[in-house]
């Protein structure tokens, strides 16, 4: 099995000033705000580095790049609801599946010999959300296929739009 990809984490220092659409003001849950906040143990010190809008814009670009250039035949994306805006339409593509955690589904695809890309971001996107702002994007090929350098560069170019530090990673395991 071959695994290639990128791991990294968001960095508030890498954020550029940017005007964002004011889409975050329609939170339906406003009346429960105090009630909820008192029951959740969120980390108040961890910064919100990207908004929902920016994260979904990133996913839109990244998934579109992967599917348009056929870099991977199927994609698993980690999404944690609730969201204050709709998911990008590209995530409804039949080649994309969304789960709260990707490990089990990735293992199922691996067991069937199916190549796939996991987009596993654990971003803190609003004040109550958990997350450590880390991400891992991994192409998993149970049959040992490798992404070529051009494919990796296409992915890297999109990842570089995030205010993040990241590294390229690769590993190989012998077939069982």
């Amino acid at each position, binding site marked *: 099995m071959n695994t290639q990809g990128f791991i990294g984490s968001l960095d508030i220092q890498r954020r550029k000033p940017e005007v964002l659409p004011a889409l975050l003001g329609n939170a339906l849950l406003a009346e429960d705000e105090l009630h909820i906040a008192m029951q959740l143990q969120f980390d108040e010190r961890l910064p919100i580095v990207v908004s929902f809008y920016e994260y979904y814009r990133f996913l839109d670009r990244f998934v579109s790049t992967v599917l348009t250039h056929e870099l991977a035949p199927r994609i698993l994306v980690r999404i944690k609801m609730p969201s204050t805006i709709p998911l990008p339409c590209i995530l409804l593509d039949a080649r994309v599946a969304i789960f709260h955690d990707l490990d089990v*589904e990735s293992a199922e695809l691996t067991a069937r010999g199916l190549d796939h890309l996991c987009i596993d971001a654990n971003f803190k996107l609003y004040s109550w959300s*958990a997350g450590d702002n880390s991400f891992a994007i991994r192409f998993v090929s149970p049959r040992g296929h490798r992404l070529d350098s051009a494919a990796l560069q296409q992915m890297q170019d999109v990842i570089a739009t995030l205010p993040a530090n990241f590294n390229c990673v690769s590993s190989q395991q012998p077939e069982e």
Partner: protein
Amino acid sequence: MNSLRINSINIVQSGFLNGLPAADFVAALSSKLIALTEAVTSTRPQTAFSHYICSSTLDIVCSGAWFEPAELSQVVATGTGISCTYSNAMQCATWGFLVRQHLLHKPDVKHILLTIVDANPLQMRFWEDNVSWGKTSHRITQVHLELPDQPAALLTDVEAIRIGKCNPTVMLYEYAGEIQKAALRHPERTIALCFFEGKMRKGLKRTLAEFPYLPDLYDEYGHVCGSDPWISIARDPQRQQGESKHYLLSSIASEGYFCFLNASLNAQSHIHIEECQVL
């Protein structure tokens, strides 16, 4: 006919989860899910299943890490011996997306368990009543689906399992069009939809008038998220015990995601509803 077989629908209350401390929530929920699952799998020894848990209402409690869905899935998987995953991204329509994912990638596993879990552990007012769709109630609905002998046919039939998205600002208008398209392809199927409060339902009345459809149970239940169409089928007043019947099920979410599924009950299908205090 390209259709999934509904072997069982089991609808139980989830009120026992409300107000539980986080530490007890996963234990209480997983115990219930393991019991429900074992009731199905014990009738089918040596049969491979895939188990998917989905939810609309367990959103902030997941994203806020009040409980970890991965832990829930793992406890249920360990307790049942069946691979189990969790998703809530498509809100009330998540179950349809999971069925599509299964058909695309795991057609070798013929038996699907869909568990739609809705509860209100933090006792939020939003999840009791809100301006968007009115009253909400909560159930755990477990559905046992069986794939036909040739599951690939479901995917090539564009309406057998179909998902999509309406523009949320004109959602009901677009959804009415989607219902009409789906129903015209399968006019013999009885439509089972979400429960809508009166004003919303009125907008769909003209669309539904030409087709067989099940009564809206909003007045009795409120909106029960992804469970709605399954409750409708379980409560179908026109179906005689032991009779086969073909349905077109659909759910739509507040962000406009929708799903349609062709599924059928047969004489052996088992239906159970835990009756409870309704609205």
